[in-house]
C-alpha cells in the first residue's frame, strides 16, 4: 500500500461458473477488469493506482464532482455490461483492497451472504420510479374560472385569487403524496422487493416540480413488461403525478443490507 503501489478496485461478485465475461472490459482508472475466484465465487476487480484510489487520494477525489462522475460511470458500465449476461452483486462505489489475497479473504468470509444475494438477484432487474407533483396545468380540471364578485374591489379580488392559488398548490401536493403512496404500493405488488430513496432536491434534478417519490423495485425479468405497462397505466390514472421510469438497473438497491419495505 505504498503511494506508488497498486490496489484493487472491486466492482461486483458473480458466481464462479463461466467467468469469461470480462474479456477486454475496461473499468475505473482505465484498467482492465479481471476475475478473481475464491470460495466458489468470483470477484470482478481492476488494478488501480494507489496514488489515485488509495485512502488519502479517495478522500480528496470523492469531493471532486468530475472525478466522481467519471468513476461512478466507469464502475456502473462494468457492472451493467456483466449484468446483461448473468447475475451480479454490485459492490458499493470505492470498495478498494490492497491485493488479490485480501479480496479472496473477503470472498471466503462473506460467501454465505454473497450467495444469498446472488440467489435473490438472479433473473431479476431493478427499476427506478420517480414521481413529481404535476403542474396544475397538466391536471384535469385544475384551472377553475373564478366567478366575478361585484361587491369587492381589486385588492380583495387579488387576495382571494392568491389564497385560492396557495390552497390549490397545497391540495396538489397532498394529492400527489397520497397518489405516490398508492403507486408505490401498486408497483410493490409486482415486485420481489421495494425500497425508497430520499427524494432528490430540485437543485440536482433540474426539474421544476418537487419530487414526492424516489423508489427502486426489484422485478423478475419475465414481469418487466408488465411492470412497465403498470407504470404507464398508473401515470394515466394519477393526474396529480408525473412519473418517470428508469432501468433496467443492476440490483444495486437490493444487495441485502438496506431493504426497507414501507414508504416513510
Amino acid at each position, binding site marked *: 500500500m505504498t503511494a506508488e503501489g497498486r490496489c484493487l478496485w472491486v466492482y461486483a461478485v458473480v458466481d464462479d461458473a463461466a467467468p469469461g465475461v470480462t474479456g477486454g472490459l475496461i473499468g475505473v482508472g482505465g484498467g482492465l477488469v479481471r476475475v478473481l475466484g475464491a470460495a466458489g465465487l468470483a470477484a470482478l476487480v481492476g488494478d488501480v493506482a494507489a496514488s489515485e484510489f488509495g485512502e488519502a487520494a479517495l478522500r480528496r477525489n470523492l469531493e471532486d464532482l468530475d472525478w466522481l462522475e467519471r468513476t461512478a460511470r466507469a464502475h456502473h458500465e462494468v457492472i451493467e455490461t456483466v449484468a446483461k449476461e448473468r447475475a451480479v452483486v454490485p459492490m*458499493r462505489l470505492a*470498495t478498494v483492497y490492497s491485493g488479490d489475497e485480501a479480496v479472496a479473504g473477503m470472498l471466503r468470509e462473506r460467501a454465505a451472504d454473497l450467495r444469498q444475494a446472488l440467489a435473490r438477484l438472479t433473473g431479476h432487474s431493478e427499476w427506478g420510479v420517480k414521481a413529481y407533483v404535476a403542474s396544475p396545468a397538466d391536471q384535469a380540471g385544475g384551472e377553475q374560472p373564478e366567478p366575478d364578485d361585484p361587491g369587492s374591489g381589486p385588492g380583495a379580488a387579488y387576495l382571494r385569487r392568491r389564497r385560492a392559488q396557495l390552497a390549490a398548490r397545497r391540495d396538489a401536493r397532498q394529492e400527489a403524496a397520497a397518489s405516490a403512496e398508492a403507486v408505490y404500493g401498486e408497483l410493490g405488488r409486482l415486485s420481489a422487493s421495494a425500497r425508497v430513496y430520499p427524494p432528490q432536491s430540485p437543485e440536482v434534478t433540474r426539474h421544476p416540480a418537487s419530487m414526492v417519490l424516489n423508489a427502486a423495485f426489484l422485478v423478475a425479468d419475465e414481469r418487466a413488461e408488465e411492470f*412497465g405497462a403498470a407504470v*404507464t397505466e398508473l401515470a394515466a390514472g394519477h393526474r396529480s403525478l408525473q412519473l418517470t421510469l428508469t432501468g433496467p438497473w443492476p440490483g444495486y438497491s437490493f444487495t441485502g443490507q438496506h431493504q426497507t419495505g414501507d414508504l416513510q
Partner: protein
Amino acid sequence: MSEAPSGATGYHPAVREERVALVDLLDRVLAGGVVIAGDVTLSIADVDLVTISLRALVTSVGALQERSG
C-alpha cells in the same frame, strides 16, 4: 460512452429517461451495493462517503446554475 437507451426493449412508460442521470446513478452506487470496507478504505464509513459526495454534487450543481443564470 455507450448508453443505449434501454427503452429499446419495448416498454412504454409515461416518460422515458434515455440517459442514466448522474443523480440516479449516485443514489445507487453510493447508497446501494454491498458494503464491505476494503482494507484500503477501511476508515471511510459509508455515511461519510454519501455525505461527502452529495455535498460535492449539490455544491457543484448549485454553482453551475448560478454561473449560467
